[in-house]
C-alpha cells in the first residue's frame, strides 16, 4: 500500500513536470497528453510497442532485484545482457549452418534442439559474466558496483572486437539474420497488435519475473539471501553459507540478464547489432527499485517506464523525447523520497 502511494506521488510529480515542459514549449499540456495516450495505450499498435519495450525492462528489473535481495547491486546487467545477446545471435546462425546439411531443418525436434542450444549459450554467457564480479567480491572483497561498471566497459570492447573480427556482416555492425524467431503477437488471428514488435518474449518475461518472485519469497535460498542483506550476525548464527549464496545470487541475476535481449534479437530485429538495448542495465535498476522487490511492482514499473519511452517517441515532433528521461529521473527520485519502505529494503547496501 505504501509503495503504491509512493508510486502515485511519483507519477503526479512527473505529470506536473510534464505540464511545465509542455508550457515551456508553448504547447497545451492536455493536447500533449492526448497525443501521448494515442501513441501508447490508446491504440493496439501503441500498446504493443509499450509491451515490447517493457519486456527487457521487467527482465532487467528481475535480474537486479534478485541480486539486490542479497544486498548486491548488479550494475552489470548491461554488459551481461549485451554479451548474451551477441552470443545467442551468433550461436543461432552457427548452429543452423552446422546442421544445414540435414534436409529436415524444419523438423520439430530440430527447432527444439536449436532453441536449447541458443538458450544454453545465452545463459552460460550471462552467468559467466556475472561470475567474475561475484568471485572478485567473495575472494578479494572488491565491491560489485565498481567491478560490474568496469566489466560493462570490457564487455563493450569484447563486442566491438567480436563484431569487427568476423561476427558482423561485412561493412556493418550487425550479425547475420537468425534462422528462427519468436512468434509475434500480431501473428495471432484474434489479436490486433498489427505491426507492433511485441512477441511471446513478453510471456517469457512475465514468467521469469513471477518465478524469481516465488524463489525469493518461498525458497530457502530466497530467505537466506534476505538474511545476508540484513543480518550478517544472524547469518553466522543460522550457518548461512554467505559466500556460496552470494555467488549463486549473482549467477541467477546474470542468467536472468541473459534473457533481456531475447525479445529484441529473436522477436523483432532478427539479428544482434552494436548498441542494441544500450542503457537497459540502469533502467533495470530503476525498475527494481520502483518495483520494491515485488513481481507485480516490477511489472508495473516496467510498464510505466516503457510507456514514457514509447510516449516520448510519439511526442517527438512536438517535444524532444529526451524530456521523458528527465521525467523518469523525477519519478525515481520522488518515489525514493516518498517511500520509506525502500530505505528499509536497501538500508544495508553501501558502496564501499
Amino acid at each position: 500500500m505504501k509503495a503504491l502511494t509512493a508510486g502515485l506521488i511519483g507519477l503526479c510529480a512527473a505529470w506536473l513536470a510534464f505540464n511545465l515542459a509542455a508550457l515551456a514549449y508553448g504547447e497545451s499540456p492536455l493536447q500533449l497528453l492526448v497525443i501521448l495516450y494515442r501513441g501508447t495505450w490508446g491504440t493496439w499498435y501503441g500498446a504493443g510497442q509499450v509491451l515490447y519495450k517493457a519486456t527487457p525492462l521487467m527482465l532487467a528489473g528481475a535480474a537486479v532485484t534478485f541480486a539486490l535481495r542479497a544486498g548486491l547491486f548488479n550494475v552489470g546487467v548491461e554488459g551481461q545482457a549485451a554479451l548474451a545477446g551477441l552470443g545467442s545471435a551468433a550461436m543461432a546462425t552457427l548452429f543452423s549452418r552446422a546442421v544445414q546439411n540435414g534436409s529436415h531443418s524444419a523438423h520439430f525436434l530440430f527447432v527444439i534442439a536449436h532453441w536449447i542450444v541458443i538458450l544454453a549459450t545465452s545463459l552460460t554467457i550471462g552467468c559467466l559474466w556475472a561470475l567474475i564480479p561475484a568471485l572478485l567480491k567473495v575472494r578479494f572483497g572488491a565491491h560489485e558496483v565498481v567491478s560490474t561498471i568496469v566489466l560493462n566497459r570490457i564487455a563493450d570492447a569484447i563486442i566491438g572486437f567480436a563484431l569487427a573480427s568476423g561476427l558482423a556482416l561485412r561493412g556493418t555492425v550487425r550479425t547475420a539474420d537468425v534462422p528462427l524467431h519468436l512468434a509475434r503477437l500480431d501473428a495471432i488471428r484474434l489479436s490486433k497488435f498489427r505491426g507492433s514488435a511485441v512477441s511471446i518474449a513478453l510471456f517469457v518475461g512475465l514468467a521469469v519475473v513471477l518465478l524469481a518472485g516465488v524463489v525469493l519469497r518461498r525458497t530457502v535460498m530466497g530467505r537466506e539471501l534476505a538474511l545476508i542483506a540484513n543480518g550478517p550476525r544472524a547469518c553466522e548464527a543460522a550457518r548461512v553459507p554467505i559466500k556460496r549464496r552470494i555467488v549463486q545470487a549473482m549467477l541467477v541475476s546474470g542468467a536472468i540478464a541473459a534473457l533481456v535481449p531475447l525479445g529484441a534479437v529473436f522477436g523483432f530485429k532478427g539479428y544482434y547489432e552494436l548498441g542494441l538495448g544500450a542503457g537497459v542495465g540502469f533502467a533495470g535498476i530503476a525498475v527494481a527499485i520502483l518495483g520494491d522487490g515485488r513481481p507485480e511492482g516490477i511489472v508495473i514499473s516496467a510498464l510505466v517506464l516503457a510507456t514514457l519511452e514509447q510516449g516520448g517517441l510519439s511526442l517527438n515532433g512536438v517535444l524532444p523525447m529526451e524530456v521523458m528521461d528527465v521525467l523518469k529521473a523525477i519519478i525515481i527520485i520522488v518515489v525514493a523520497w516518498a517511500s520509506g519502505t525502500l530505505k528499509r529494503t536497501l538500508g544495508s547496501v553501501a558502496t564501499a
Partner: protein
Amino acid sequence: MGERNAEADVGIGGDGMSAIVTATHVIAIAAPYGCAALGGVWSERSGVVNIALEGMLIVSAFVSIAVHAATSSAWLGLIAGIVAGAMIGFVHGLLVERAGVHALLSGLGLNLFAVGITRVGLRALYGSSSNSPNVSGFGWPIDPTVILAIGSTIVTIIVFRSTVFGLRVRACGESPNAARACGVDVFWTRVMAVSVGGAIAGIGGVALAFDLRQFQSGMTSGRGFVALALVVVSGWRPGRVFVLALVFSLLDWLQIAAQEKLGVFGFVVQTLPYVATLVGLAAVRPGQSAVAPKGLGISANA
C-alpha cells in the same frame, strides 16, 4: 571512445618534443577522470556515497560550453561549469541527508536527469541532437582547467590533512554520531563537502568540453563511473587518486593510439585500462591499504 581520434594520435616514442606533447595529452585526458574522482573522494570522505559523478561531469561540460558560447568568455564558461557541478552536488547532498533518499537512488536519478537535461538543452539551444557549435576555449599552451585540476588536488590534500573543515569532513565520514556529539553540524558539513566535490568534478567536465572545444551528446561516456572505481582503488585518498588518474590516462592514451590497429593486439590494448582497474580493485585488500570511511552511507540520526 572514438571522439579523440586522429588529432590525439601523436607519435609514440620519437623525440623529446613529441614526448612533451604526449605528456600534455595524457594530462588532458587525465583531468576529467582525476577531477571526478577527487569529487568522489570529497563526497565519500564525508560519508555520502556518490555515483552522480557522471551527471556532474556532463552537466558542467554542457553548461560551460553554453555559457562560453553565449558570452564568448571562456572564463565565464569555466565558472558556470564549476557552479553547475556544485549545484548537482548540493542537490545530491540535500536529497540524501535531508530528504532521506537512498544515496544510490539519488545518484542514479541525478545521472539520468543530467543526461536528459543536457540533451534537451542541446536541442533547445542549438537545435541539434549530437553536438554544440565550436567555442574558442582558452587557447593557452596548458589549459587553465588542467592547472585547476592539479591545484585542487593539492588543496584537497592540505584541507584534509590540516584544516578544521577537513577534519570535520573526515569526522562526519568516519563516525557521524561522534562528530555530532562534538558539536559538528553533520548535515551542513556533508552537504558542503558534496558540493565542493561537485565543483571539482565540474572542473573535470569543463576540461573535457574545452579540450574538444564543443559539447557532444553523451560525451562523458562513462568517465564518471571509471572515476568511481578510481576512488575505491585509491583507498579514498586524494593524492593517490591523482596518480591513478594519470596511470589510467596513460593506458587510455595507448588505447586511443592503438585504435586503428585491429586484431587481438588492438583489442588487448583497448581493454587494458579497464582490466588494470579490475586488477587494482582485487589487489587493494579492504582493511589494509584501502580503508573505506566507516560512516559511509550512515546517517547521523541512526
